[in-house]
Each structure stands twice: as C-alpha cells, then as structure tokens.
C-alpha cells in the first residue's frame, strides 16, 4: 500500500530528526571531553584520537570533586525533605476534605512561578546574617522550597489515583491500620513518590542561580556553579576539555535515570500540569 509506506517513511524521518536534535549537543560535549588537549581546536565533531586525560584532570581537581560531593549531598537532602513535606501535604490535598485546599494549591502555583532572582539578594543578605551563607543548608532550604510546588502537584495527582478503599479491605482482611498502610498503600504510592523524587532531584541538580549567589567557596558550591568558575592555565583561556569532561560526569547519571524511568517521568510531569 503506497499511502502507508510513504507515511511510514515520513514518520521515520520525523523520528530521526528528533533523535538527532536531542543527541547532537550531548555527543558534541562527549566528543570534546574525549579530545586530547592539542586537538581541542580541530573543530571536528568526531575526535581523531580518544583520550581520558580530561577526566583524569577533573578527578584530580579538588574544586570539582568537592563540588560533586556537594551536588550529590545537597540535591539528595533537598529531595528527601521536599518529598517528605510534599507527601504529607499531598495526602491531605488528595484525601481529606477541608477548607483552604484551593488556597494551598494556588499558593503552591504562585511559588512555582516565583522568579528566584527576586529573592537571591534578600537571601544573600539574610544568609550572611544568620550564618547560612556558603553552607549546605543555605542551598538545601531554597531548593526544597522551590521544588515543593512541583512535588505537591505531582504527588497529589498520583495519590488521587490510588484506590484507597484497599486500605479498608486489608483491615477487613485482618491487617492492623499500620500493616494496611505499610503493605498496601506504601507499595501503591511508591512509584508516584519515586517519580516526584526524580523530578525534584533534577531541579536541584540543575540549579545555577542559587548555587552561584549563595556560595563563595568549595564548601558548598555545586557542580553547575563550579563549572562557571573553572579556570584554565591562563585567565583568558577556558579549560574546554575539563569543563566538557565535568559536564559529561554530571550529565550521565541524569541521562541514565531519565532513560530508565522515562515512562514515569512523562506521567509525572504531565499529571501535575494537566490536572493543576
């Protein structure tokens, strides 16, 4: 059939274009990170020679290794706290009947739209006064807050889908309320919680503006901010190879996570947005 084979060809082209679109910049950075120093200027998309010297360099650079530890720790803790608080709120929003629901949801929406630049000045000043400037909590607090709306929206969308009457069914079947919660509800809620956690983690991992303004040393600087402060041999020459290698290092975990959990991430991203 002529019509459908032409259609199939069109779809294939479309899919190919999308794949190239998504992958070219990533492959480009990967290519840069694998080029030996003397070939960084060869402007080729595919390296002529492969070398891991850039990776050796960054893993021997304290600025980067510290930043990596900071990034993992800060993003991880912010995710943990954000999900905990959001899960409590989302449970109430999804299951309990109370006045003020709309108020909380629109408040969360307002925070989601809030421009961080509008408060970095204030936070900068307040953090210096209360001693949070250039510390882990100094970043964890804003990350946690700014991811709360996203987490609340996605979690309450997920929670609304849980067949809660199963909890009662389990109790009728002889489970204690706690067992019913642990054996029935937790496994049902886990995928949603997990998805929200990934989205929150990506946000915190990605942030640059808070990391850049609220830190000044290796103490709490995360990778995105550290990348901007990388300096090469001379002040005017940026260490392209090292930055590319560092970029790949922070990108790979996210890509792996995104690829493994793609279906859930899509569900999470859209559940929050559409139902909100």
């Amino acid at each position, binding site marked *: 059939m002529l019509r459908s084979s032409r259609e199939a060809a069109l779809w294939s082209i479309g899919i190919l274009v999308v794949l190239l679109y*998504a992958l070219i910049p990533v492959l480009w950075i990967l290519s840069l990170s694998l080029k030996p120093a003397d070939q960084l200027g060869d402007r080729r998309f595919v390296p002529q020679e492969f070398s891991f010297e850039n990776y050796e360099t960054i893993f021997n650079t304290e600025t980067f290794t510290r930043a990596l530890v900071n990034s993992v720790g800060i993003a991880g803790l912010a995710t943990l706290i954000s999900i905990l608080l959001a899960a409590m709120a989302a449970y109430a929003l999804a299951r309990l009947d109370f006045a003020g629901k709309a108020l909380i949801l629109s408040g969360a929406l307002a925070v989601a739209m809030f*421009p961080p630049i509008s408060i970095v*000045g204030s936070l900068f000043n307040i953090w210096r006064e209360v001693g949070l400037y250039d510390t882990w909590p100094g970043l964890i607090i804003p990350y946690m807050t700014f991811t709360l709306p996203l987490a609340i929206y996605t979690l309450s969308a997920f929670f609304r889908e849980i067949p809660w009457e199963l909890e009662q069914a389990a109790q009728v079947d002889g489970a204690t309320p706690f067992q019913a919660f642990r054996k029935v509800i937790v496994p049902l809620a886990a995928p949603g919680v997990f998805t929200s956690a990934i989205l929150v983690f990506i946000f915190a991992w990605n942030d640059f*503006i808070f990391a850049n303004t609220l830190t000044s040393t290796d103490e709490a600087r995360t990778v995105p901010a550290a990348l901007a402060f990388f300096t090469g041999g001379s002040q005017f020459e940026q260490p392209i190879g090292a930055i590319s290698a560092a970029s790949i290092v922070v990108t790979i975990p996210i890509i792996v996570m995104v690829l493994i959990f793609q279906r859930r991430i899509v569900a999470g991203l859209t559940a929050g947005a559409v139902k909100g």
Partner: protein
Amino acid sequence: MSERRRSERRLAWMLCAPAVIAMLIVTGYPIGYAVWLSLQDYDLRFPDDREFVGLSNYADVLTSSIWWGDVWNTTIITVASVSIELVLGMAIALIMHRAIFGRGAVRASVLIPYGIVTVVAAFGWRYAFDPASGFVQNLPLISDTAAPLTERGGSLAVIVLTEVWKTTPFMALLLLAGLALVPDELHEAAKVDGAGPVQRFFRITLPLMKPAILVALLFRTLDAFRVFDTVYIQTAGANGTETVSILGYQVLINRVNLGVGSAVSVLIFLAVILIATFFVRGLGASTARQRGEAA
C-alpha cells in the same frame, strides 16, 4: 460541624503546615525583605550610608536606559524562544502522539535535553559556535570565520537556540498530554464530516487543546522571562544580551548594591505577576468557554 469533620480538618492543616510554612518563609519573607531593602540606599561597600530613600531606587531603575534595554532583550529572547518552542514542541508532540513506531525512542530522546543541567547545555552550544573549537563552522554553508557569540544578533540567536533545545521537550510533553485529551472519535467524526488533516488540526485539535497550550505557554513564558543560566554562561550579558535577571545579579551580587538591586528584583517580580495574570485570565476564559459556561 461534626467532631469528625473538625478533626479531619485539623489533621489536614497539620499535614500541610510544614510545606506551607516553608514556602511562606523562603519566598514570602525574602520578597517582603526585598521590598524593604529596595526602599533604602544600601550599598554593602558603604554600609554606613544606609538610609531610607522611598521610591527613589525605583525612579533610578525606571529612568535608566539599561533597565529598558534589558527588558527589551529579555522580551526578544522570551518571545522568540517560546514561539519557536510552541511550533517545534507541537511537532514533536504530534510525532509522539501519532507515530506508529519508535514512540519510546522519541520519548526517551526528548527527555535528554530536559534532564541536562542548563549550564552544561549552555557550555555545549557555546563551544559548538566557538570559532576556535566549534564544529559548527566546519559545516558546509557556514562562514569559516563567523563568530556569532561576539556580536548581538548572533549571541541572541545562540541563546535562543540553547533555550529552545533545552526546554522544547517540556513543552512537547505538556502538549502531548493535551493531545491525549482530544478523543480519537472526534477525529473520526470530523473525517466523516469531510475535514482533511489540516482542517482537523486547526478546527478540532487546536481549539480543544487551547487550555493545555495556554498552561504550557504560561510556564514556559515565565521560565524564559527569568532566563539567567544560559546568558550567564554564554555571554555574561555582553554584546547587548543582558537580561533583567542578569542585571539583577550584577547589581546585587557583583556590585553589592542591595538597594537598587532589590528594586530590580521587585520589578521583575511584578513583571512575572503581570504575565501570569494575563495568562490565567486567558486560561479561565477559555476553559469556561469550553465548558459552555459563557454561552
């Protein structure tokens, strides 16, 4: 109110309280503090000269050509990137929605730009267009000596390209969710009614997706208006590419002028409220129309 309902309500508020308090403290208090700071002459280099000056910081900002130039730059970047994203995102959403095969591959690949750290994306594109190292100048049809990041038009184009690349997937996913809400049966009915593919898209799909499109546009417009990371990495505001967020950062953090910087911050906040109100109005009206309430 029954005792049961009262206790349910109490429990609900207890569960919501930590999140609500956190959001209030970390956004509400600082924005209030920013308003207060913006009314003062407060430069950290001269902390002893701190004094209350009323609205004069705002007057300074609003009469400066730098502010308006930056507003203009931000608007260009926002409008250009959001409109390109809308078209491109719609195309990708349609591919994901209608493709007979390879759907998973497309979904997985578009999530890569979404997951990548903006700073990394900005570096990647910057190096790609760098005359000394970039592969772009090696491509046919492109001048060997072009250095887009050294002049305004080129810099704006690369910034928009980076933003579009990074955030189109998000747009596409939101639009895809909207597409999924248009029942197949309506397409079939329109087919039988004699509508071709183009007519079906414009007369059935688009009108029904309007709320989803508005939500996607709202989020992306606000996001684009706050653009900071990409500009900071690629030009740091040079070549006439400074945006309002970069301006705020320069004044607050580099020049540590908290008074004027806070005025800029508050103005950005007001601009965001303005944009949001505009969209939410449109959204309310369009969903009401859809439900037939206005008729």
